[in-house]
């Protein structure tokens, strides 16, 4: 049952990610459902599920992206791994723990920009106009999810 739920959530997040350019976009910034899913599955559910989901979603996600095969499984698996490493060092149910989600989205976005842009001098501009707002937006979504998780646990 748990695996079925994970599979369903993974497919939904993948679908939303691939179509976020059309439906979940504010200006040039968009929500990253896969990262949010990995964040919450790893920290609040089962890290192993998060690892599997990250690896296979990475493969499916990069079908539509002009990158070498294996890039996104590596990125997503590593994200899950580092989230798991610092899991015990944070108090998960506090809202300030969402700073970790902010950092996750920021660094993954940074790696994406490094892979995509041709001129590195355009990166500082992209950090200000794209990465930080995107990380804030995703943290806000995480805030809503965390609110529901807390209510559910209470």
């Amino acid at each position, binding site marked *: 049952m748990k695996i079925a739920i994970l599979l369903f959530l993974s497919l939904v997040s993948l679908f939303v990610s691939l179509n976020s350019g059309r439906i979940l976009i504010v200006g040039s910034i968009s929500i990253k459902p896969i990262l949010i899913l990995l964040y919450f599955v790893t920290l609040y559910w089962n890290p*192993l599920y998060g690892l599997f989901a990250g*690896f296979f979603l990475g*493969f499916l996600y990069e079908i539509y992206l002009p990158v070498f*095969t*294996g890039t996104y*499984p*590596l990125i997503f698996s590593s994200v899950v*791994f580092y989230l798991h490493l610092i899991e015990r060092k944070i108090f998960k149910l506090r809202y300030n723990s969402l700073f970790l989600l902010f950092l996750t989205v920021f660094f993954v976005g940074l790696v994406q920009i490094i892979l995509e842009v041709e001129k590195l001098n355009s990166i500082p501009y992209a950090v200000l106009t794209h990465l930080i707002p995107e990380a804030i937006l995703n943290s806000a979504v995480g805030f809503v999810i965390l609110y529901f998780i807390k209510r559910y646990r209470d």
Partner: protein
Amino acid sequence: MKKKFFRFYILFVFISLLFLICEAFSDIKLGNKCYALLTFDFRNFCSKFLKSHDLKEENSRLLEKIAVLSYERQLFNELKKENQELKEIIEFRFNYPKLIIPADIERRMPEEVNLSFQIGKGYSHGVERNAAVIGFEGIVGKVLKSGRNTALIQTLKNYNSAISVKDTKNKAEGILRWNKKFFVEGIPQYVDLKKGDTLVTSGKGSVFPKGLPVGVVNDVKKKLNEYSLEVEIEPFEDLDRLDVVFIIKK
């Protein structure tokens, strides 16, 4: 749990790096193959399978078409060849107006070793006895007999044939004869005749006009205590493959 997690992480990193290295540094596209499996277009596959019957019909229809086209191509080649021959005849007649009578060879008559032709034109067409006969490339022979609508051509391949020829370079003259091979007799040994030199008719005698191409020297031999050279020649005209000849009017 933590150990298991760590092992899986190492495994996934290893797989990802393997894909990355394969794609970046070699022609092996592991990713493409995996994606081909993942994105296997089942509907397209089914439609292809259902269309296989149509393909068989189309295949047989195309085979029939190929057969028709092949036949037409052969026909076209024949017409092309005929067209080329007719063009050559027209060009030839244009170069020698009024003097030339073209005639088809109706029959070949190899009498033992002598080769003669029967042509479909006779004195009613202006073909006279002892008129010179040429082909596209060079001399063929002369008219031996002329009937009302047919004539007999004595070719160069005849023991009785003797044509006065000369070398275009040295102007040395000799007599072309045939004895199982073509040779020229009567050219003195001091004449500098070499393989590849061209021979034409000298115009002496009453049959062949001057300057008709005859052939090229194939071999020259000098014999001790003899006056003349032993000259073997290769005629321009291939007598065994002729279809049309031209009679030069006197």
